[in-house]
């Protein structure tokens, strides 16, 4: 198969070709775009300022002696510059975006419409509470949904994203240990956990110890239980884990951790695979963050900020951060420092954010939840898992899926690079070839527990036609990788605005700011 069904040729015109053969460097209406510093200068700016009348400068030695070097563009050219750049971007609104662990699902436009209502969009966080009752009620309603979906009694809405939520959960765990005078120093993190977990625990001052994964890609239960003891403050476990697999031992793990005096933090980044099907509170979890920007479809990855509310068990609820919304007699108010003692929340460890959280994301998430309803959310999880398994089974015979023999995956399909053995190609080469085919590559080289990992998360919003097209593309690439020539892959991408970049040089000798052209070179031109 050398033609995709979009009709686009998949063979490079010339192997390793870089640059465009046209006079302008443009490729039809895909325009080559220089840096703004290269197209604009202060003398072509669209604004005419009157010359400054002669005056005595009081800056002395601080006066600037060289040109400031800012670009200047007429308005029309500035608009074109950024519009052209935006066309070179790739997002979920452009096409399939199977970035594993990131849950790049469609963001329904209804959410956007709701978030732009002036009563939500134009209010100030310091507005008197009696003037923003609707906004407070919305936060409260969303909190009630999150508590019901997780079967957890308390939720902190303020954390701004996933890792911020992890930090919030770990701070509550530390506060709970400190409140009983128990200075535990160790947090156990399984290999199958998200990469941010060890960083969050270390940031809280804990020593982090790894727990190995077993041959099924799950937490090694025996190894974890053997390490428990009076020095272990918590276990941070990701469920479904970062191999896209459900951790069936979580309840047993929680019981063992609690018996040893520790707490269980669950990374809920993959809650989208189990929402409506599994309630983490039933599995003995003490704290879990929920990525509204994954599970509940609020935009992320350049499209908007994250939001990571944290649900808490009965044991940790008293330590939850301020502020939070409570309802009394049909009115809503914030519990803050001034009122915390009176409302019996004086054990709170403090604040995660200055104000109440990501209001715009709360609106989007609640719009998503209410438009789906409880049964719809359950179907979201089921369809996400169905789509991932469709991809896993559609590719396992031509790629290599290390855990496919253990049964179905959850919301993401994990492959390793053993199918590339003997081809001289790597996971990176496959990812680059996918760009030529018009796909954003999957997550690669993560999780670390498998070699050359490729983690594919289709999400529930892709239909069967799109999945079949992706499977067809990947089958073609896997077969082409075996049949050669390798150069087709090692020099890819060939059709992107830039061909293969030198990642090593970019990391070793990063150029982070625009470098003005050398004076001599300018003169010579």
């Amino acid at each position: 198969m050398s033609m995709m069904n979009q009709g686009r040729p998949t063979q490079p015109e010339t192997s390793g070709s870089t640059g465009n053969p046209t006079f302008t460097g443009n490729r039809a209406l895909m325009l080559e775009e220089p840096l703004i510093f290269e197209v604009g200068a202060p003398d072509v700016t669209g604004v005419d300022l009157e010359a400054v009348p002669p005056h005595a400068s009081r800056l002395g030695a601080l006066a600037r002696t060289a040109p400031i070097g800012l670009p200047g563009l007429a308005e029309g050219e500035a608009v074109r510059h950024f519009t052209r750049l935006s066309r070179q971007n790739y997002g979920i609104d452009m096409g399939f975006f199977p970035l594993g662990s990131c849950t790049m699902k469609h963001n329904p436009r209804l959410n956007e419409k709701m978030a732009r209502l002036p009563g939500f969009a134009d209010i100030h966080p310091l507005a008197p509470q009696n003037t923003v009752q609707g906004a407070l009620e919305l936060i409260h309603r969303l909190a009630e949904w999150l508590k019901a979906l997780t079967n957890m009694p308390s939720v902190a809405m303020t954390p701004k994203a996933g890792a911020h939520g992890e930090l919030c959960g770990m701070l509550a765990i530390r506060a709970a240990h400190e409140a009983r005078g128990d200075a535990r120093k160790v947090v156990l993190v399984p290999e199958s956990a998200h990469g941010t977990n060890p960083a969050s625990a270390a940031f809280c001052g804990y020593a982090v110890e790894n727990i190995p994964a077993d041959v099924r890609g799950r937490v090694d239960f025996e190894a974890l239980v053997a390490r428990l003891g009076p020095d272990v403050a918590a276990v941070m476990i990701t469920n479904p884990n970062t191999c896209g697999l459900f951790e069936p031992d979580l309840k047993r793990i929680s019981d063992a951790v609690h018996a040893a005096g520790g707490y269980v933090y669950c990374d809920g980044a993959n809650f989208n695979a189990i929402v409506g099907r599994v309630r983490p509170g039933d599995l003995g979890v003490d704290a879990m963050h929920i990525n509204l920007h994954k599970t509940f479809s609020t935009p992320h990855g350049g499209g908007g900020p994250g939001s990571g509310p944290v649900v808490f068990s009965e044991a940790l609820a008293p330590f939850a951060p301020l502020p939070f919304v409570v309802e009394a007699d049909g009115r809503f108010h914030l519990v803050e420092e001034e009122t915390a003692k009176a409302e019996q929340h004086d054990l709170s460890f403090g604040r995660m954010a200055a104000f109440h959280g990501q209001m715009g994301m709360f609106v989007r998430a609640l719009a998503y939840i209410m438009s789906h309803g409880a049964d719809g959310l359950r179907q979201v999880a089921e369809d996400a898992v169905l789509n991932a398994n469709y991809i896993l089974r559609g590719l396992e015979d031509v790629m290599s899926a290390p855990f496919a023999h253990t049964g179905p995956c959850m919301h993401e399909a994990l492959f390793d690079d053993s199918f590339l053995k003997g081809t001289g190609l790597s996971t990176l080469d496959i990812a680059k070839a996918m760009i030529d085919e018009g796909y954003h590559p999957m997550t690669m080289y993560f999780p670390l527990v498998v070699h050359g990992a490729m983690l594919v998360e289709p999400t529930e919003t892709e239909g069967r036609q799109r999945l079949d097209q992706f499977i067809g593309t990947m089958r073609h690439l896997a077969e082409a990788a075996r049949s050669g020539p390798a150069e087709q892959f090692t020099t890819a991408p060939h059709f992107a605005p830039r061909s293969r970049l030198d990642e090593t040089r970019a990391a070793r000798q990063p150029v982070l700011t625009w470098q003005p052209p050398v004076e001599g070179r300018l003169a010579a031109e």
Partner: protein
Amino acid sequence: MRYYTRDHEWIDVDGDAATVGITDYAQGQLGDVVFVELPEPGRTVEAGKEAAVVESVKAASEVYAPVSGTVTEANQAVADDSSLVNSDPEGQGWFFRLTLSDPGQLSALMDETAYKSFVATL
């Protein structure tokens, strides 16, 4: 005498002084190394615990101390030019030197033949 660990560090021992680095197999797996974080001289390191960090275009990995001891020197050349880890991992690309606190720990490590057959199984 050179010893190897299952985590792909090597250690050259001369009396109670030793030099530590990562093996050629390890650098091949990591890919191009872009950053190396080395321990300060004077720091005590514990066998099997983190002593340095190596970051490649693919991932950041911890380098464990093969045996316990006190760091006497970090290889500034590697800190300045991390590509030495790729070009000469078991020579100029060494990470740090240390004074052994318990030479008996060496008996738990592999010699070259044992390490080569270990790598062949991976």
